[in-house]
């Protein structure tokens, strides 16, 4: 499943796990909620352990929650609403797991949306 409510690519991402090494000390640029973006965040979640890493992951998940929220508010007739709604809730769950210092569990939550 590829969710990309804005039909944009993730070209400005700082780190792409497909092409570069994952660095949990960098913030993933979140411009959409596509599968590529989610994969990138998942890869970073799995590599995260320190306070700083978890702060960056929380910021990325906040951003996913925010833009899925925008989508739900602005696209009432979209056929993707149910999927995006689930991702919106999943991003919140993953966010709260990161807050509990459980980035691996947060990654598992997001993997359900790939």
């Amino acid at each position, binding site marked *: 499943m590829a969710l990309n409510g804005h039909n944009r690519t993730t070209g400005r991402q700082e780190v792409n796990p497909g092409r570069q090494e994952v660095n949990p000390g960098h913030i993933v640029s979140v411009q959409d909620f596509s599968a590529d973006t989610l994969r990138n965040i998942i890869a970073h979640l799995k590599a995260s352990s320190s*306070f*700083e890493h978890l*702060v960056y992951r929380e910021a990325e998940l*906040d951003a996913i929650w925010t833009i899925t929220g925008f989508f739900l508010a602005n696209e009432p007739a979209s056929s993707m609403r149910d999927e995006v709604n689930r991702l919106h809730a999943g991003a919140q769950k993953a966010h709260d797991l990161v807050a509990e210092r459980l980035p691996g569990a947060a990654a598992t939550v997001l993997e359900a949306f790939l």
Partner: protein
Amino acid sequence: MLSRDENELLTQTDSAMPAGKYFRRFWLPVLLPSEVPTPDCSPVRVRVLGEDLLAFRDTNGRVGLIDEFCAHRRASLFWGRNEECGLRCVYHGWKFDVNGTCVDMPNEPSEYGFGNKLRTTAYPTREYGGLIWAYMGPAEHQPELPKLEWARVPDSHRYISKRFQETNYLQAIEGGIDSSHSNFLHASLDAFRVTDAYVEKVRNSNNLRAKYHLLDKAPRFTVKKTDYGLVIGVRRNAEDDRYYWRLTQFLLPSHTMIPYQKGLAIHGHCWVPRDDQTCWVWTISWNPEAPLSEEEWKTIRDETFVHAKVDPATFRPVRNKANQYLLDREKQRTANMTGIHGFASQDQAIQESMGPVVDRTRERLGTSDTAIIATRRLLLQEIRELGEGREPFTAGHGDVYWVRSASLLLKRDVEFDEGARELMKAEV
């Protein structure tokens, strides 16, 4: 985004609450010395961390900070007489010294022996760095005073102002470390629209901030946890192979510093909870190398930057919520983003507009809010650890405050904390 429980955990600072216990592990600024200027002067009311207290300077010059209400019948000691090393309640004559000991109880027979056995709440105070500080926690955990650079410069090198803000302390801190708002809230219209005139002005100035904010409006954030709290690095693209970095400190429990450019004054804040809906904003400007210059005094007098004029009795800013911060819509149309004069009033207006305690479950954060997320997580971690019996490291180590903010150009392959190591050392 925070859960409702997390938001309450962070923002409730009464003595029984976890964050209240945490703040009570630190020395906190509570008064300007000028509020109790001379021995036996008039007492003043002080509300801090939800407690109503009374400050007075006794005959020997010592500053007392005691419960506002008399231990006898709970009458306010504000009406009391400050006389011969104690504050006497005018209702029945009970008298308390700076340690809270009842040293005279004239309406009770002396054989009852109440005197000298009764104490009221009293907190230790220190005069330090141009302020009066109080410690409101358990005596066995009394910490060191923070060795902040501004507290150690001569008086002529420093200016401190105090103002009352109608928000919880956390909202105010979040404004202080959120550097991405400055391009908008504090911008002139020329800067916001990037007019030719503005570009020309910036090109010819030594203001690195203006120059590089113009070149890159989407900065990248980095945070590093430190012994004192956090250093927040905000990076913008600069010429060639360099980045322009602005480094802000968040020092536990609630101090912040604004990025400093060598040769100019440094500015910082301390945000102290007055109660859960209001806070005290302490704003400090200092020059480690020289007395504040005439230009710096002019900036203070004109209220263009971090200081704002206040009512001398209440410390409520002259520009306040009740008068819409003297908003000038014509100025907003023609001169700046807000139509409000001065950075301090602009910050206060926007922070108060969010309500006394913002509902953080309803936010829409993004990656530019990384510093805010980091600050909340650090405070939550510290508060929870204290609840588990671990004392805050920072409170017991005054030397860790020996730092200063910075702004500088670095090669792109240099980590900011390495490249700025020397600049971030306080010198005074």
